[in-house]
C-alpha cells in the first residue's frame, strides 16, 4: 500500500507539472461556461420542467468537452513511459503491476474530478445571485455528479488501456477517443432511430447509453444499475490493461 501512495503521488505530480492538466482544465471551464449559459437561456425563455442542472448537462457543449477529456488525461500514462524506456526502470524496482496501474488510473480519476469543481461553483453562484430563483434540486445535483464520476471512471479505464497498447501518445488518444465515441453513439443511435425499432432493443441499448444515463441522473433519479455497469466495465478495462502491461512476462 505504501508503494501505491508513492506511485500515486508521483503520477499526480506528473499531471500538475506538465501543462496538460491546466490546458484541459481551461478548456473544460470554457465549455462548461457555454453549457451553463445555454441552460440559463433555456430557463429565461420559458418556464421549464427541467432544472438548470439537467439543462446544463444536456447542452451540446457538455458533450463536446466529454470527448476530449479522457484521451488528453490518459494518453501519456503508459505511452510516455514506453517511449522514454522508463517502464523498464519502473518494473525492475520492487513494484507490482497492479500498483502501477492502480496509481496511474487513480491519479487520472482525481484530476478528472478536479476538472468538474468549477462547474459546481457555476451552479452555486447562479443560485446565490438570483437569490434562490434558480433552483438547485439536491437530487439532480447529486445524480449529475455521481454519474459524471462513474462515466469518467469507465472512460478513463478505457483510456488507460489504450495508452498501454502503444508507445505513441497520439495513437493512444485516438484509440481512447474512438472507443468512447462508439460507446456514446449507442445513445445517439436510439435517439435517431428509436421510433422505428422494437421497444425491446431500445430498452436493451438504453442500458448502455451514456445520454440516457445523463438524462435519468440529472433528473434526480439515482439508479444503481448504470453505476454498477460503469464500475464493472472500469474493472474490466483495468484488467485488460494489466494483461497488456504484463504481456512481456507471459511465458509460452
Amino acid at each position, binding site marked *: 500500500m505504501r508503494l501505491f501512495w*508513492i506511485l500515486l503521488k508521483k503520477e499526480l505530480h506528473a499531471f500538475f507539472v506538465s501543462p496538460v492538466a491546466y490546458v484541459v482544465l481551461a478548456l473544460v471551464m470554457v465549455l462548461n461556461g457555454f453549457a451553463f449559459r445555454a441552460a440559463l437561456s433555456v430557463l429565461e425563455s420559458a418556464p421549464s420542467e427541467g432544472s438548470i442542472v439537467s439543462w446544463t448537462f444536456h447542452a451540446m457543449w457538455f458533450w463536446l468537452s466529454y470527448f476530449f477529456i479522457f484521451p488528453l488525461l490518459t494518453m501519456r500514462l503508459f505511452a510516455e513511459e514506453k517511449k*522514454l524506456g522508463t517502464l523498464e*526502470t519502473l518494473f525492475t524496482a*520492487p513494484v*507490482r503491476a497492479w500498483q502501477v496501474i492502480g496509481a496511474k488510473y487513480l491519479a487520472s480519476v482525481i484530476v478528472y474530478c478536479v476538472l468538474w469543481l468549477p462547474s459546481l461553483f457555476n451552479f452555486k453562484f447562479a443560485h446565490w445571485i438570483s437569490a434562490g430563483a434558480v433552483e438547485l434540486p439536491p437530487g439532480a445535483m447529486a445524480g449529475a455528479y455521481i454519474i459524471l464520476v462513474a462515466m469518467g471512471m469507465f472512460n478513463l479505464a478505457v483510456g488507460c488501456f489504450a495508452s498501454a497498447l502503444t508507445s505513441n501518445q497520439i495513437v493512444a488518444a485516438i484509440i481512447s477517443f474512438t472507443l468512447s465515441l462508439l460507446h456514446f453513439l449507442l445513445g445517439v443511435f436510439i435517439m435517431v432511430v428509436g421510433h422505428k425499432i422494437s421497444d425491446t432493443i431500445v430498452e436493451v441499448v438504453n442500458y448502455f447509453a451514456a445520454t440516457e444515463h445523463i438524462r435519468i441522473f440529472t433528473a434526480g433519479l439515482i439508479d444503481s444499475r448504470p453505476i454498477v455497469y460503469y464500475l464493472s466495465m472500469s474493472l474490466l478495462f483495468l484488467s485488460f490493461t494489466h494483461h497488456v502491461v504484463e504481456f*512481456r*512476462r507471459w511465458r509460452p
Partner: protein
Amino acid sequence: MIDVQDLTKQYAGRTAVNHISFRVEPGEIVGFLGPNGAGKSTTMRILSGYMPATSGRASVAGFDVFHQSIQVRQNVGYMPENAPLYTDMKVKEYLRFRAELKGLSGLSMRRRIGEVMELTGVTDMRKRLIGNLSKGYRQRVALADALVHKPRLLILDEPTNGLDPVQIRHVRDLLRSLKSKHTVLLSTHILHEVEQSCDRVVMINQGRIRANDTPENLTRQLRSTTLLHLEVEGNGPMAEKLNALPGVRKATEEPLLVHPWRRFTLRVEPDHDVRDAVLSLATEQKWRIREMHRQLPTLEDVFVELSMNAGTPADIPTHVL
C-alpha cells in the same frame, strides 16, 4: 550471486539467448562482452526480473528471477541501456522517488541519497530538471538510482556509453571502490574497460557464451595467434622459406611496399618465439631486415576473433573456450 543455467530467450522465433550457463560469485566484477545484438541486454533484463526467459533457470542472490521476482528486484540495482529517466523530474526528486519505491524512508533515505549523489558526482545538479541534463549526467543519475538501495548485485548495461574519457575513468574508479560491497555485472563493448576493471570476462556472441575467464588468461591463451611483422629486402619465394621455419604456422606476404622492400606477417604457434630463427634465416639468405616486431594479442583480438567467428562453437579455437 548469479546462477544461470541453460537459459534461453526467444522473441517471435528469433533466438536472442541460446542455452547459456554461467555463475558469478559474490564480490566479483564481471564484464559481459559482446558485439551489438549478442544477447547481453536480454540476459540482463532477465536477471533483473524485467522479463522471463523462454526456458532455463536463473537465480540472483538465491531467489528465482521468475517466481521470486520482487525479492530479486530488492537485491538488484539495475541500470538499463541509455539510462531512461523521467525528464520532468528534478534529480533529487527522482532519486527520492526511486529510493522510496525501493523501500527507503526518513532520515536514512535522505542521508543515502546525499551519499549516492556525492559518489556519482551529481550533487551540483540536484535541483536541475533531468530533461535539461547532458547525457553524461543522466548516466550518472541512473547509476545513483541503481546504487541507492545498497543492492547486493549491480547490473549495469553499458554504464560508460556516451561518457567522455574523464567521466569513464570516474565510473571505473567508482566501480572498483564498490567492489567490497557489491557484486557487479556490467556489459560493455569497450575492451579497455574490461581489462581495467573486471575480474572476469564472459564473452557472448549470437546468444552463446564464447569465453568465460579472467582477462589475463584470455589474452594469454590467445598468444597462440601471436603475430610477427617483418620488413625485409630479398628475392625469391621468401614466404615459403619462412613457412618452413619450425613454429611458424603461416607466413603471408602483405601488399607491396616500395620495391625492393617486402612485408610479411607470420602467425606463430603457441609458446614459440621464432625471432631468432628468422634472423638466422635472413643472415643465411643474405636478406636485409629493417623491421621485425612481435604483436602481442590484446583482449580486443579475442573479441574480434570471437565476433568474426559467428558460426558454431566448433569454429572457435578450443583453447579459448
